[in-house]
């Protein structure tokens, strides 16, 4: 298949189709509506089902139904709409159902605006809804990486029977880049024996539920979930580094912001500042390993985010007091520009050299 020039939102939709997504339930919201519109055109072409729900709450519960039946299913929204879905995500986590939920973040809190933001980091990485649960969170930084991570999102969801969040910001959703879809073999995953597709009289009825009235049983179920999260933490951490080998200072950034940081890092290097970057690809589980590796070598870390400072808390936990951790961020939909990130780097390195 030749390269196609696409918008980020369209790439997520097409990548989901390539990953075998057959059902989509959603409700449009800027800046991710192109994803919904693309699915409305595309799913009927492959005999899939697209349904625009009456609300985000309805959409996530339709996802619950389709996931129960063992179908690869997705929904998408942007910050306020993603908040509305949280009850459903908690139910999916409790009932151990695989699904992919996309959040293309925008400025908040509240109704906020339609400009790009990363201020849903706490929400996506710390559970989001009620109860003790986590969802794997994947944060692509390029449109080609969306292709790879959308496929991974569906595979992780099925393998671990868990909802998985694909997180981007409005800029990632709206920008255009050429992408290539490769026809990869589907990963061999365990058969969904739990799916409620009818018993045909050949066994006990299958029930999918997050309800458990007995406290001890519910605690046992929580233990099961927690052990699953431990396995995910051991096996599914992903990150990337940039010019990190000889770095004396380290930027930490994810998604589109990592690309702004990259160009600032290149210029800082030209100014004689030895700086590199750690880019978390999974935000949960948060990549602790690269911090363990670099925290004794570098003089300071700088977390750059489109938020008031959210990921920086995980950076501090991972650095564990071994080096200073500074923060630079813009909020409310303001995109940090190259020069202000460069200034933050220079001030981290003591005014530049």
């Amino acid at each position: 298949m030749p390269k196609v020039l696409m918008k980020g939102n369209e790439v997520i939709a097409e990548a989901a189709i390539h990953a075998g997504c057959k059902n989509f339930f959603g409700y449009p919201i800027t800046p991710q509506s192109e994803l919904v519109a693309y699915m409305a055109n595309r799913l009927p072409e492959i005999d899939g089902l697209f349904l625009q729900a009456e609300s985000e709450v309805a959409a996530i519960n339709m996802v619950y139904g389709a996931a129960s039946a063992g179908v690869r299913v997705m929904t998408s929204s942007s910050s306020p709409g993603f908040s509305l879905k949280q009850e459903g995500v908690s139910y999916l986590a409790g009932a151990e159902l695989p699904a992919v939920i996309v959040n293309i973040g925008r400025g908040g809190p509240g109704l906020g605006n339609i400009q790009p933001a990363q201020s849903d980091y706490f929400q996506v990485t710390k559970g989001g809804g009620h109860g003790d649960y986590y969802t794997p969170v994947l944060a692509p930084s390029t449109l080609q990486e969306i292709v790879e991570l959308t496929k991974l999102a569906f595979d992780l969801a099925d393998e671990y029977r868990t909802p998985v969040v694909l997180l981007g910001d409005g800029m990632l959703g709206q920008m255009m880049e050429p992408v290539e879809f490769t026809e990869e073999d589907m990963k061999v995953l365990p058969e969904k024996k739990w799916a409620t597709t009818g018993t045909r009289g050949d066994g006990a009825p299958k029930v999918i539920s997050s309800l458990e009235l007995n406290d001890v049983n519910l605690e046992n179920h929580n233990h099961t979930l927690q052990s699953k999260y431990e396995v995910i933490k051991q096996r599914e951490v992903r990150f990337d580094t940039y010019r990190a080998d000889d770095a004396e200072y380290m930027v930490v950034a994810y998604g589109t912001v990592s690309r702004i940081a990259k160009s600032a890092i290149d210029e800082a290097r030209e100014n004689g500042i030895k700086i590199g970057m750690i880019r978390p690809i999974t935000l949960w589980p948060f990549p602790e390993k690269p911090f363990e590796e670099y925290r004794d070598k570098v003089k300071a870390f700088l977390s750059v985010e489109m938020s008031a400072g959210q990921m920086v808390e995980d950076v501090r936990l991972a650095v564990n007091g071994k080096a200073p951790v500074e923060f630079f961020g813009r909020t409310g939909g303001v995109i940090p520009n190259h020069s202000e990130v460069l200034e933050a780097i220079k001030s981290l390195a003591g005014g530049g050299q």
Partner: protein
Amino acid sequence: MNHNKRIKILTGHFGSGKTEIAINLAIEEAKAHDKVALNDLDVINPYFRSRDVEGELKEYGVELIAPKGLLATADLPIVSPEIYRVLKNQSYRVIIDVGGDKDGATALGQYYNDLKGEDYELIFVINANRPYVSTTEGVINTIKQIEDVSRLKVTGLINNTNYGCEHTTVENVLLGTEIAEEVSKKLEIPFLYTTLSEKIGDHTQGFEALNNINYIKRFMTLPWEK
């Protein structure tokens, strides 16, 4: 082919590059004319619209007509009523940047009665690397849909087939030219020219050999492209 009408309307598939071309055409007009207005009619895109570069347009002597102030980013499908001020004023050169696909062109339909008696041209921009317009049939379908909702006829084609500065190849541009020529023949609409970024030569060679190219400056850049 006549590409010198007082009113130039830019339509095309969603994400075909209309806004960049509209801005460049407006700047070109401003070199020869005192009064040039660029109308941002985009009710589809939330970002990367003409209204985002109002300051730069002003420097080039181009007046922007678009939802202003808080309304500019209000996520409401609104257009500025100020367009009427320039549509009938013969001393104005007018560029209209329409939102993508038939959905975007629906916003153009309301001006049918104001446009039909005027000296206008309706340009359709093709980027054959976009989904659903990679074939002659795909382009023709989109043109028909846009003509239906706008109640106007497309009068010229621009080939803007590209993958962005870094990834565009000569072969790829030629593929777009071929599709534009086929569409031109089938629908009897003149194929005007091909547009390429003026920075294309920084990344790939061989474009000098191509015919009928208009080099354009890009305004809708990403923060790491500055």
